[in-house]
């Protein structure tokens, strides 16, 4: 991508000669992008296990028909909280953590553009998630109306309602501050010679994701604010008796919600586009088309929201418009899948753990994409709506896509972050257990959905028993396998295999990004003098 001549990496002038604070306080008051990236990543990992534990409760209850372990109300709290924790606590912070660590190093910047705000956006995230978690212990239980918080159902929530709403506000503030920081960093902090079309694709996807975040998080904040006033201040935004409309909430929510799902997938695309070329030992195929496809997907995400609501009784013209607009998304997404495949074509491929996860992502994300295409067809969606088919669909686009790529990113950059090599054998074991169990977990849910099993129910007809049991078994194996990842992360930080990694870690990685020109682990401050980026051409 670009070559670098710089002898200044370790240069410190007087002004920058600050090491990290001693003790735990370092992590509370830090403004360092690497520290904050680490905080985000550990927080995301912790929330991945919290949300995962909730998923285990769900799968345990669904292991057999009949009521087994939990009350229906608590079951619905679990589905709601699992979604909110995974979306806002695990996947989004995971990618923000990667952005914090990698974007300054990838564009040759000394730090993020607004370091104090960077610290605040992390701690506000923690506050938001704590507020959300506190609802589990409240009178009336945690929110149980689904993560979409649809009125009028969600207005029946007990004491948890205002806490959940303010938690959304805090999470929104955190995301907006993080996104503003990322945009300012990318536009203002690039090293000389790092033109926009020379940026690594991870940086590009995050630039576009950050724009989506700033555009839609305030929309979600507005929607939940109206829930709050409807409940406590007598307004009738979502109450037909006053001239409002509960469907209006769904429109506003999905105007946020659809870009939101791309907020979780675009950085995924960026990491995949970073890893695949390294292990295929070829430049990324179609760099500029990747950039344009990302922008096209982001644009389309704003004009397709009502495909989540085909069954609410929209005018037919609306159904048709949203159906065709949604199908358009398959085109830029297809460009991306084609490009990843073409990158691997005739490449000298090796299959280290990051590459295995990335290849699994390409295949399994495509399955999720195809089921999405099935559901974009409005008359078909009437059959699939609110069944396990949609559950299978979005879990394919989130678990073996976003989560797998977060794992891949962990394996790919851990040696750079820590200076130690992870245990490749356990890594591969983790991969194979994950990729097999994730399919046992989610593939049968397609069949359940097509056979008519509704989502968000704690009990079901006996005809669904077999596939549910198989799905649960897959879920338990998948959940347990992730402990291997936790082990590997801790083991690598503590020294890993003992093998000292080189600066570029992966063969010829320096051709693929500035971060591989830095020492492993990189010093506390990097690029205090901007590197001189010599442009080379994209092939």
């Amino acid at each position, binding site marked *: 991508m670009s070559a670098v001549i710089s002898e200044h990496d370790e240069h410190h*002038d007087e002004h*920058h000669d*600050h090491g990290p604070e001693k003790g735990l306080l370092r992590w509370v*008051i*830090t*403004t*360092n992008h690497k520290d904050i990236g680490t905080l985000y990543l550990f927080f995301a990992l912790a929330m991945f296990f919290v949300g995962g534990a909730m998923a285990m409760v769900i799968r345990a209850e669904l292991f057999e028909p009949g009521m087994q372990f939990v009350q229906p109300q608590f079951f619905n709290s679990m589905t709601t909280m699992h979604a909110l924790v995974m979306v806002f606590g695990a996947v989004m912070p995971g990618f923000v953590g990667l952005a914090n660590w990698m974007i300054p190093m990838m564009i040759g910047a*000394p*730090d993020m*553009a*607004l*370091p104090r*705000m960077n*610290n*605040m956006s992390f*701690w*506000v995230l*923690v*506050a938001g998630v704590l*507020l959300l978690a506190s609802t589990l212990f409240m009178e009336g239980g945690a929110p149980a109306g689904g993560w979409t918080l649809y009125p009028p159902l969600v207005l029946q929530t007990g*004491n948890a309602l*205002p*806490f959940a709403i*303010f938690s959304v*506000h*805090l999470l929104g503030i955190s995301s907006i501050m993080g996104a*503003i*920081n990322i945009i*300012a960093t990318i536009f*203002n*902090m690039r090293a000389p010679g790092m033109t926009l079309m020379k940026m690594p694709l991870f940086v590009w996807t995050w630039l576009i994701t950050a724009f989506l975040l*700033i*555009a*839609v998080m*305030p*929309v979600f904040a*507005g929607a939940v604010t*109206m829930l*709050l*006033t409807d409940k406590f*201040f*007598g*307004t*009738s*935004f979502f*109450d*037909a*008796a*006053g*001239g*409002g*409309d509960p469907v*209006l909430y769904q*429109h*506003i929510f999905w105007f946020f919600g659809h870009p939101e799902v791309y907020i979780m997938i675009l950085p995924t695309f960026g990491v995949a586009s970073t890893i695949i070329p390294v292990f295929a030992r070829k430049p990324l195929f179609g760099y500029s088309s990747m950039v344009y496809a990302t922008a096209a997907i982001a644009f389309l995400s704003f004009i397709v929201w009502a495909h989540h609501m085909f069954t609410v009784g929209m*005018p037919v013209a609306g159904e048709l418009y949203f159906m065709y607009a949604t199908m358009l998304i398959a085109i830029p997404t297809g460009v991306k899948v084609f490009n990843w495949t073409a990158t691997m074509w005739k490449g000298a491929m090796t299959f280290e753990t990051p590459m295995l996860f990335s290849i699994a992502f390409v295949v399994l994300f495509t399955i999720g994409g195809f089921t999405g295409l099935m559901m974009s067809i409005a008359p078909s969606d009437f059959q699939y709506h609110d069944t396990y088919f949609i559950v299978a669909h979005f879990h394919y686009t989130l678990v073996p896509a976003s989560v797998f790529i977060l794992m891949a990113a962990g394996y790919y950059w851990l040696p750079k972050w820590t200076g130690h090599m992870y245990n490749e054998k356990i890594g591969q074991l983790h991969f194979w257990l994950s990729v097999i169990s994730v399919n046992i977990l989610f593939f049968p849910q397609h069949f359940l959905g097509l056979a008519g099993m509704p989502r968000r129910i704690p009990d079901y007809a006996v005809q669904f028993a077999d596939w549910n049991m198989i799905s649960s078994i897959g879920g338990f194996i998948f959940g347990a396998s992730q402990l291997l990842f936790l082990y590997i992360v801790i083991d690598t930080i503590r020294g890993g295999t003992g093998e000292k990694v080189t600066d570029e870690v992966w063969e010829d990685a320096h051709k693929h990004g500035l971060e591989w020109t830095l020492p492993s682990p990189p010093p506390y*401050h990097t690029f*205090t*003098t*901007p590197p001189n980026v010599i442009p080379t051409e994209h092939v």
Partner: protein
Amino acid sequence: MSSSDTYYIPHKATWPVMATFGLATLLAGFANYLNGSSIGSPMMIIGFTIFIIMLAGWFTLQATESETGLYNKQVGISFRMGMMWFIFSEIMFFAVFFGTLWYTRNLSVPWLGGEGIGAATKELLWPNFEAHWPTNGPGHLLDGKPTEHGEFEKMSAWGLPFLNTLLLLSSGVTVTWAHHGLLEKNRAQLIKGLAATVALGFLFVIFQAIEYHEAYSEMGLTLGTGIYGSTFFMLTGFHGFHVCVGAIILSVVLFRTTKGHFSPENHFAFEAAAWYWHFVDVVWLGLFIFVYIL
């Protein structure tokens, strides 16, 4: 001024954690208050106090660093980008409520009256309801409660609201005049312009308070007056809150001006405040047209 190799990176920030603590306490307190818990109000007061102290402390720090010349041109660009994208997020926040107004006026209220896909809805729910605007809905909501024939008055555009439009438009002129004073090193003009802007801003808020008082006491128009009351007070209320915030920001800038801060080259705080003020101004024009006139 200087090149990027002396980029200023602040270290060891304590204000952001305090901001988080204040904000979370304030919101958790508000949630407790809404649930009827007695610890709600004290928590809100504590959280709000912490938040205000944080604001004062953090902005004093930034102002001091700026005046001692720690920020180079690149840092200034980062700040400006931050402010621009923050205002963009605010625009999206207001867009939700404008969108709500559009949707209810043009779609959901006509559907309740039987138009388009609403024929069955009308027959089954409220066969006597005729769609019109403004409306408090088929349940004739007053104060959030259904009534038999609850009537209310529509807010007229040409009294106080029109006066407020003139006030805000003039304040846009005075803040630009002040900016020219700053650029031309005419400090008297800068101070006069800012003072006039702040005065016009607070006058706007006072007039709006009078308008709200009339609505509540004489017109039967409250937050609970169906969808018209909901959209009217939500839109104008959030806007009024932003005018207050903008006027307070401008007051701080005015205070710093009297302390001799800002130069023609280095005055990010002034620019940010002026941008914010213009944004508040433009939102008002949207409100005046879509909420009051149409």
